[in-house]
Every structure is written in C-alpha cells, then in structure tokens.
C-alpha cells in the first residue's frame, strides 16, 4: 500500500470492525485499505463525480456530496469514526464542519496541512508572497484551500469548542516526526478527537 503518511497513520489507528465515514474520500485509497486490510465497514463522501465513479467501480459505497452542505443529512452518532482528511481547510466554515464531524462520529480523525511549517514561514518572510509548495501546489487565487490554518490555530479552536484531543501525530517530508515544536516542524498534522 502506498498511502500518504497521514492516511496510513489513520488506517493504522482505526480498530477492526468499526463503522467509518471517510469524508472527502477521493478515489477511495484509504477506504480500500480500511476495508481490505482492516475489516472496517467504511462509507465515503466525495464532491467530484469522477472520483465517486472510480470508488463505485472499486465496489466502495460512496455518496457524491458537498461536505459543507450534505453532512447535515447524516443521523447523529451514525458512525464509530468520522474521517476528514485534507478537507477542513477547504470548508466554508471549518468550525461548523468540525461540529458535524463530531455529531456524526463518536470519534473523529482530522488531518490538515500546517501553514506554520517553517518552510512556509520562511517562504512568506523572504518572498512576501503566498507560498506555493509541493503540498500546496496551487496559486492563492485558484486554490481550494480557502481557510489555511496552523497546528496552534487548530488547538485553539478545539479548546474553544471543548473538544477532547485523544491523540495527535505530525509529519514532514513524508515521515512521521515527534510532537516537539510541531507547529514549526510539521507539514501535516493528524488529530484524533472526541466530544
């Protein structure tokens, strides 16, 4: 399996037999691993019809939908685990989306790119322009990432909402790193949350 490190981490942390909703599931890479290697009952939501099509052709159950709007259709506590990978920063209102996530799932995994990664800070400091990097490769005017955030921002939001952090993991250069000064050192973060 060649999952992105944040997805591989989430896959390794979801217990067998859970009911899982993967929001923004793309072409179902994580879903496939959860189903085939972890024995998880997994469903997906994806905005792009072509990606939904690919999921369906792999035998995955994926609903085309807009997480900003359609999460409201899911019943409370419908899933053991709700996963939101690399999607929070694309939400119209990330705070509302977080509420929905923790309403639908008893626990939630959230992964996002950390805008306070030191290379980002340096790039902004030196060039004075919004950074375009390997992980955020699109110019500011056409990016889907409309709400850039940092690890520290996210912790502030969780504290303000009274959300419990059950665990956090950090990644840089495709590898997991420790949590020491993660807001400087991490390109990506994964949080496990509950109410």
């Amino acid at each position, binding site marked *: 399996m060649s999952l992105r490190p944040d997805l591989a981490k989430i896959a390794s942390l979801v217990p067998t037999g859970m*009911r899982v909703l993967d929001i923004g599931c793309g072409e179902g890479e994580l879903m496939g691993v959860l189903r085939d290697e972890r024995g998880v009952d997994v*469903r997906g939501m994806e905005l792009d*019809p*072509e990606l*939904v*099509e690919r*999921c*369906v*052709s*792999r*035998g*995955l*159950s*994926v*609903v*085309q*939908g807009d997480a900003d709007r*359609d999460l409201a*259709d*899911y*019943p409370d506590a*419908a899933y053991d685990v709700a996963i939101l990978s690399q999607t929070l920063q694309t939400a119209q209102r990330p705070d509302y989306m977080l509420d929905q996530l923790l309403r639908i799932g008893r626990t939630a995994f959230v992964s996002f790119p950390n805008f306070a990664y030191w290379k980002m800070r340096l790039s902004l400091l030196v060039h004075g322009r919004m950074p375009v990097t390997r992980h955020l490769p699109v110019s500011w005017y056409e990016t889907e990432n409309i709400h850039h955030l940092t690890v520290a921002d996210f912790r502030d939001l969780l504290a303000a909402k009274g959300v419990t952090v059950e665990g956090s993991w950090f990644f840089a250069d495709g590898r997991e790193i420790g949590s020491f000064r993660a807001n400087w050192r991490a390109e990506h973060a994964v949080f496990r949350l509950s109410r």
Partner: protein
Amino acid sequence: MATALPLDLNRLTLAHPLPLDSGKVLEGVELAYETYGTLAADRGNAILIFHALTGDQFVARQHPVTGKPGWWERMVGPGLPIDTDRHFIICANIIGGCMGSTGPASPGPDGQPWGMRFPVITVRDMVRAQVALLDQLGIGTLHAVVGGSMGGMLALSLAANWPGRASRVLAIATTARHSAQNIAFHEVGRQAIMADPDWAGGDYYGGSGKGPEKGLSVARMAAHITYLSEAGLTEKFGRRLQDREAKSFGFDADFQVESYLRYQGISFTNRFDANSYLYITRAMDYFDLAEEHGGRLADAFQHVGDTRFCVISFDTDWLYPTAESRAVVHALNAVAAPVSFVELSAPFGHDSFLLDCPALDRVVKGFVG
C-alpha cells in the same frame, strides 16, 4: 393500435392468483418476458431489469413490432456494462402493459378485453407479479435489480418490500414518490386520451375501431418534452424550420421540433395501447414509497440489511431531479445501508439514462460487477 398481438412471445402464466394493493385479485396473470445470457448452475448470476413507462422486455433484442434495436442495447450485451457473457438477464413486461403481459387489452373473465374494467394497479403490484415470476423460474436471490425512471421505482419498491431478494439495487433517474408536477404532466396525457372520441370509454378494442390514436399521440408528445432538456431541444432543433424556407403562416409543422414531436406521437401509437398508458401512469402517480411505510422513507428501507444500493441522477433531468435521488440516499443513510450516489452530467435531460453517457456505463459496470 396494437391489441391482439400476432407475435410469438415468451410467456408464463402465474401459478397463483395475484393479490393487488386495491384489495382485488387478478387470476391467471400472464407475464411476457425475455432472457439474455445463461443462468449459472448455482443460479446466482441473475439480474432483473425493470423497464420504464413505455419500455418493454426487449432490452437488448430487436423489437418485434417496430423492428428497432432493444431499448438498452448500449448497456446490456456481451462485454457491455451489464454483461450477458457473465450474467443472466431477465426483463418482463409489467402487468398493465401491452407487450404480452396481462393488461387492459387482455381478455377479462368474460373473454372480452378488460378495457377500463381492468383493476387499477400499483408499482408494488407490478413488482409482486415479477417476484412471482422469479419464484416460478426458480430464481431466489438476484445478483442485482436494475431500473431507470419508472423501472427505478420498481427497483426501490422491490428493495423495500422484498428485502434480501436482490443483493444489489441500481436505481437510475428515478424517485421514491411522484411529485405534483409529475402527476400534473401525466394528467395532461390521460385527459388527452380520454378526450379523444375514439377512446370510447376505453372500449375500443373490437371491430375496425382504431382507438384514440390522436389522444395517445398528444399524450406522448407532452410526455416526450419532459424526457428532454431545454438545452438539448435547443441544440437539436433550435428554431429551425422543417423542409421549408419560411414560415407558412399556417398550422403545419413549420418548426423541426413540431415535426419531431408529431412523429414521436404517431409512431408511439403503433406500439402502445392507450388504456395501458392510462393504467401505468396512474400506478406511477400513486407511487409514494414513504406513504406505504407510515410516512417516513427511511422506514421503507429498515429491513434492507447489507443490500448494496447505487443511486444515479442526471444534472439536466427536471422530471426526476437530483433532489429526489438525494432523498432516497438520505433515507438509506438513515438506516446505514451501503449506498453510493452520483449525479452525472449529461445534456439529454431525463432520457440521459438511455443515451450515450460514458460515465453512466462506467458506474453501472463498476456497481453491477
């Protein structure tokens, strides 16, 4: 109008009387059906396809009346998304229809055509008859049940009322209930038929009477508009004139779109019975899967277990718009059924499910497997 069909159709008579939702019972029900492919030794590869309002059992075989190709030949066949090399496909003419199954043109108990004495039937009655057909053919659990438009309603009805009978349910361009707008368009069609003096109260089968061809033709014209999209009509016809340089200042079919609709209407009367049109549209209008189950659509699906669902809508379909499919998906989510849903982009309106839409082919192939 075709009444007594001089055709050699595959038919089966149901062994038991068929109870109807109205409380009446139909005796000696005949179902005309076609099969494609070979039934596996374990009988596990059967797929039931439900046809739409004006469709029939000739899914992937030349139509014996019109001589035209089957209505879904682009989808069903060797190596196609619904692969007859691997699956055994069954498609039966619905009861109330006019391609060999028991309907208003069939002989009633007194030997005369039923006409309007035929009992009003429902979508669930149509499914009940086909479940009985499966029983008699010795087919238990279906690999899949597939339907578009009205066929999708039958597929949802089978999933809700005969849970476990199909492992996969594919419902395309359909709805769990007929809206006021759907009913309204059907009522226009029915009134056109009944306003035709040749309808004669539905008793037009005997003698030299040709039946309400004008009324049925107008009904088809009105309905046909609802199967297309405004953009599709504009692209196909625009305001172009039919075989003339200028407007005639009369009421001939000046515009290409008029000529097209007239042709659609007239050719329909060669293969369809007006009373069947009345009965089938009535059944569709009565269809409300939530109402059948206490008013909550999710309750209709509460026993579906791990049946897999795939719901597909088209962005230009204003007859059964995406919101109707989403309501079905919402209900299936509420009972935690494994459901996939995708809204496909295609320019042809409701009829997109019958036309060239490669994305549809891929989703159907992927889901049916």
